[in-house]
């Protein structure tokens, strides 16, 4: 314990210090709580997806660095776009040995599926590990499409015949697709596939016309010269794609991210929360995690934790509510 603390203090970022001191994460507080049994690392998506990879990487790093006296056990609960995982966490209220790895369905699922009765603002925020980015991709065979304008022209010409692939109605890419439809005033056919990798493959095989994939899902096909990005939905250009403009630069107000954060069930004890904030903070600042972020095209500049993450969740939920309202839930589900 002492040893880990030393390592932690050495690697610490000023921002983290500020937040963790606010939470009283000092040597004594850390000793107040330690896990008594294996910790369940609930993943609100299926095996092999982005959230799953992150969870398993974190699990491996925790073991490699010997950060916890009890192992973290990843458990996939992909049911109902994460609804099952959220219900599970809700039922685990007050438990100190369960944490959830999220994606944006953390926000959208309770909005779209009103019946599930979960209020994620009551969950215990721990730490935001990364922000994932989105780009618009087309196959290189579409030589006529070189930028957003020619893309919009092509989509408008094709009408409903234009096929956009995604990972499922209500998922991040379907929201972004609906945002684009709204913004550019066209309508496309959205085809869901299980997983971003399958979407990427169908784009390469010309079974769909375009997709909004994460960098990690398309980058290898991009390097192999199969697909090309047209525009980034980020605030600034990603280092990996210096020549691709952002939507903002082109005067289109389209910006969207997916957060990857760790959250506890409602009513987790403060000592346990502090222990997790500390642990994931250390992972966040580790060389391995930062390398992974760069390779995977994730943004990992700032470790939001505790109440700061809670506040971030509140603003994001508001944002998603407005987004879903403005495009209409029907535009997302298609029925």
């Amino acid at each position: 314990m002492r040893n880990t603390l030393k390592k932690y203090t050495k690697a610490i970022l000023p921002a983290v210090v500020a937040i963790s001191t606010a939470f009283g994460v000092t040597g004594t507080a850390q000793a107040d709580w330690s896990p008594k049994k294996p910790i369940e690392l609930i993943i609100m998506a299926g095996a092999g997806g982005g959230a799953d990879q992150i969870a398993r990487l974190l699990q491996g790093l925790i073991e490699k660095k010997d950060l916890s006296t009890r192992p973290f056990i990843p458990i996939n609960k992909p049911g109902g776009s994460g609804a099952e995982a959220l219900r599970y966490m809700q039922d685990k209220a007050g438990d100190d040995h369960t944490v959830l790895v999220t994606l944006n369905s953390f926000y959208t699922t309770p909005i779209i599926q009103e019946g599930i009765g979960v209020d994620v603002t009551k969950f215990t925020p721990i730490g935001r590990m990364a922000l994932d980015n989105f780009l618009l991709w087309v196959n290189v065979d579409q030589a006529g499409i070189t930028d957003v304008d020619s893309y919009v022209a092509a989509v408008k010409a094709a009408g409903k015949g234009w096929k956009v692939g995604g990972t499922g109605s209500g998922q991040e890419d379907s929201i972004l697709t609906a945002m684009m439809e709204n913004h550019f005033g066209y309508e496309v056919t959205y085809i869901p596939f299980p997983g971003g990798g399958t979407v990427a493959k169908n784009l390469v095989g010309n079974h769909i016309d375009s997709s909004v994939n994460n960098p990690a899902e398309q980058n290898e096909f991009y390097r192999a010269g199969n697909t090309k990005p047209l525009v980034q939905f980020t605030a600034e250009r990603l280092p990996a794609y210096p020549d691709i403009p952002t939507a903002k630069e082109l005067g289109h107000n389209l910006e969207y991210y997916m957060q990857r954060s760790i959250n506890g069930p409602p009513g987790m004890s403060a000592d346990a929360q502090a222990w997790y904030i500390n642990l994931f903070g250390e992972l966040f600042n580790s060389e391995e995690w930062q390398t992974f972020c760069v390779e995977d095209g994730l943004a990992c500049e700032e470790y939001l934790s505790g109440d700061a993450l809670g506040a971030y969740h509140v603003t994001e939920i508001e944002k998603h509510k407005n987004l879903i309202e403005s495009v209409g839930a029907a535009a997302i589900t298609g029925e």
Partner: protein
Amino acid sequence: MTVRTAELLTAIICALCSIGLMLKANELNIGWIDGRGPGSGAWPFWLSAGMLFASLLTMFRWFIGATPESRSTELFITRDRLMIVSISAGSILFLLVATHLVGIYVALVLFLLFYLRFVGRHTWLLTTILMIGIPVFVFCLFEWALKIPLPKSFTEPMFYPIYDLMYS
């Protein structure tokens, strides 16, 4: 109850289940959406309709006596066979209920005690060995080797010292 009665009764229950599924699927869009193909409820609805049709066919075949089951006037299950089956099914039911109440490990010990000693009439020595050996094996395989925590209910804190041993 004869096999003949059971056959008709089962077909009726199957038909009712099919109708139930059709009603449940009807909460969603069961029609064809122009330019999109079938709605989300169409596949379960029409398949359930097929189940209903198949059940009705079975009833019809019962009526005309086309299947061996619909002609058989033997008992569906004799009393002593029913005993054997219900003891087994009942002990599994007990194991599941007990898992919720006292956690799987205590439930396993009780289940094995009952099955080995009172159903199998094995010696106390063998019963005791297996009663302890099998739960220990399950624990080692799942909790330790595969890291799949099994439900323990309120007996959870009793395992903390074992975790201390396992992970220290």
